[in-house]
């Protein structure tokens, strides 16, 4: 089907990898690796379908976001070192998580600076431009918006805060979704408002977090969508946990899974 054609035609546009398949080091992220393996699995399926060579450096663990954002900078700094050691040699690092990529891009240099480690800071700055959230990699590096996906469901999309504001992915995820065959994509009201997860915020300010999540879940239900899609499983877990509790009949699916789905291999 046209799916695979679209994929193979998408020749790599990045200069260094012009004549060979782009080599992608997958950063699965600890959270997806452990709790939502479907998202990194779909990322692998999708990238391989688009002609990439995917590797998974097994030494990877965590970007340190949870530590940094809770104030435990001393605990996060060794993870910055580890990240650079594991991924430093990669052409491209791709992760199915806007917030983890945000933490690498926005916080790793700050942590290295705080630790007074100029060598590490340099390495971070050298690596950072090669670290991409999935939709950025597809659109900016591979130059595709039609990834040959087929997903015949009514879908609404939540642009997570870190993808939207920290990374500035803009409408890239929506451009990808609009090209999906069979999809019925509906706008989410107040889409850019935070769902209230915020990592440990959900624990430390549980009442406010729940109030925010409840409003988000209500907006999702108002769309009549059967699937809520986002590029971050942590936000999806938060909103999805509410939708489940409300027996709303809406399920949450990661963007990578929608884009990986085809007629032959549906999600």
């Amino acid at each position: 089907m046209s799916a695979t054609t679209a994929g193979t035609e998408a020749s790599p546009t990045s200069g260094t990898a012009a004549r060979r398949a782009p080599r992608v080091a997958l950063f699965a992220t600890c959270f997806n690796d452990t709790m939502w393996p479907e998202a990194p699995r779909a990322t692998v399926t999708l990238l391989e379908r688009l002609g990439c060579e995917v590797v998974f450096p097994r030494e990877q663990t965590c970007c340190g976001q949870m530590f940094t954002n809770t104030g435990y900078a001393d605990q996060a700094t060794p993870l910055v070192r580890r990240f650079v050691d594991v991924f430093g040699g990669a052409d491209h690092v791709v992760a199915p998580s806007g917030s983890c990529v945000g933490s690498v891009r926005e916080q790793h240099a700050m942590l290295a600076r705080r630790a007074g480690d100029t060598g590490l800071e340099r390495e971070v700055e050298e690596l950072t431009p090669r670290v991409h959230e999935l939709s950025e990699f597809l659109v900016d590096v591979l130059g595709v918006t039609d990834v040959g996906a087929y997903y015949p469901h009514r879908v609404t999309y939540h642009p997570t805060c870190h993808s939207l504001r920290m990374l500035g992915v803009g409408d890239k995820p929506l451009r990808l979704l609009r090209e999906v065959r069979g999809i019925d994509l509906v706008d989410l009201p107040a889409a850019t408002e935070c769902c209230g997860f915020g990592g440990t915020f959900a624990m430390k300010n549980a009442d406010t977090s729940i109030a925010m999540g409840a409003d988000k879940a209500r907006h999702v239900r108002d769309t009549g969508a059967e699937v809520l899609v986002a590029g971050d499983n942590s936000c999806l877990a938060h909103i999805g946990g509410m939708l489940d509790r409300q027996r709303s009949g809406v399920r949450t699916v990661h963007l990578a899974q929608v884009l990986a789905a085809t007629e032959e291999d549906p999600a």
Partner: protein
Amino acid sequence: MSELPVQATSATFLGMPSFQRAAKDALANTQQRRNLAHATATIRTKRAAVVGEVEGWEDLRVAGAAAKDEALHHLPDYLEELEANLTARGATVHWARDAAEANQIVIDITRAKGADEVVKVKSMATQEIELNEALEAAGIAAWETDLAELIVQLGHDRPSHILVPAIHRNRAEIREIFVREMGGVGRAAPEDLTDEPARLAEAARLHLREKFLRAKVAVSGANFAIADTGTLVVVESEGNGRMCLTLPETLISVVGVEKVLPSLEDLSTMLQLLPRSSTGERMNPYTSMWTGVTPGDGPQEVHVVLLDNGRSRVLADEVGREALRCIRCSACLNVCPVYERAGGHAYGSVYPGPIGAVLNPQLRGTSSEVDKSLPYASSLCGACFEACPVRIDIPALLVKLRTQVVDEASGRSAEAASMKAAAWMFGDHRRMEAAQRASTLGGRLLGGRTLRSVPGLGAWTQARDVPTPPTQTFRQWWASTHGDDPDAGADEAASPVAGPTGDGVDEATPDEQGATDHRTGGGTAADAESRDPRHTSGESS
């Protein structure tokens, strides 16, 4: 002056419970939540429209931030310049290190004029130092003349928004306050007062007019102080401020030292940024500028109190000083989903919302319960940074302050112990894999059933179902499909005796702990803490 001394600060709203506890009470107030949601949504839409009209808004923001940074980086120089120009134009300049000094200066001047009352222009700085309370203790009545501030004052209340201090009140409540309180402090409200905005405004006008015409002394703040001309600027919507600035014989302006701008050119940048960001207007109705004393016109005695009150402490912090760029437009409050739900009082200060969450702990330090909790009063969604006309990176400042709170606690909490254990677990992929095995084992045992309650996850499960861990991690799948054995060599790391090394951490089995932390989505240690006519005013000054 060459250097600003480090100051003690005022104790505005202190003795507040932590943000979390105050927010919980506020969330139960459905009337307030409705008022806040409606008011902030309205102003957000207005703001977005007028900001969208400006081509090069981003360039303006950069220029605004640069002007403030220039002033802050050379603050002593610009303050000296301001003082010299004010003095040359007939004003008297006073320096106040803290709230007590500033209040005493105002009291002394008022007494010297033989006055027992002052009229006031809305001013954040005088609220911060609790000037009204200090004047009252000295037998001097202070009358707020901004309509929203009048509502707050008559209601014996606290402001809950920078720009719309009575945002938490509705019209019916305002009518009730006017009817009950006005008579006791001046002209009474008309007997047949209704809650129509026009009637409420009329009642306030009649009440205030008597005070404007009678008062000999006025107290103001300033939105900006221009160093190279010695000009003070007040930006407002109602014109009541201008009445205070022109009618009384004596004018005392209490001005935070961070309000200084190098030149009038910088003011033009600010006057494009401020009204659009704050009220969603292209220009505010009243901008008053005065330079010292003009013989025969306006106040003939002009005093300027330059207030430090913790600002030099903030200035000394290379990262934190960014917060002093704030022009109190309140855009960050209006876009903040946390403020919208928790309300302004939960922040325990006249500076609520995102800017309050970074400014208060810096001005006051992080020793009190409320100041320790404020850096955590955010989901770090970034909406505040996006809205801020002077580009204050509030999320980054929050993260930095969280680090300060954690460092000050010096590792003595259950949370710190679990964070250390989790960091130990993530410090090596074999340890992480061992923790994952504990987690997926749980997933297998549960057979995909949804968990309704998990020990230690009380707050989470109260409103959300917890996803069960999958039976296979990603890396196990990868190993089975792309050929790498994740279980190889992991066993020594999984040993329960191999605890995290380092200070003061219990030999908790890190694999257990790590796995649990992990499942909560980064919520390590579901810690002990977790269980357990309003918009009538002008801009801030």
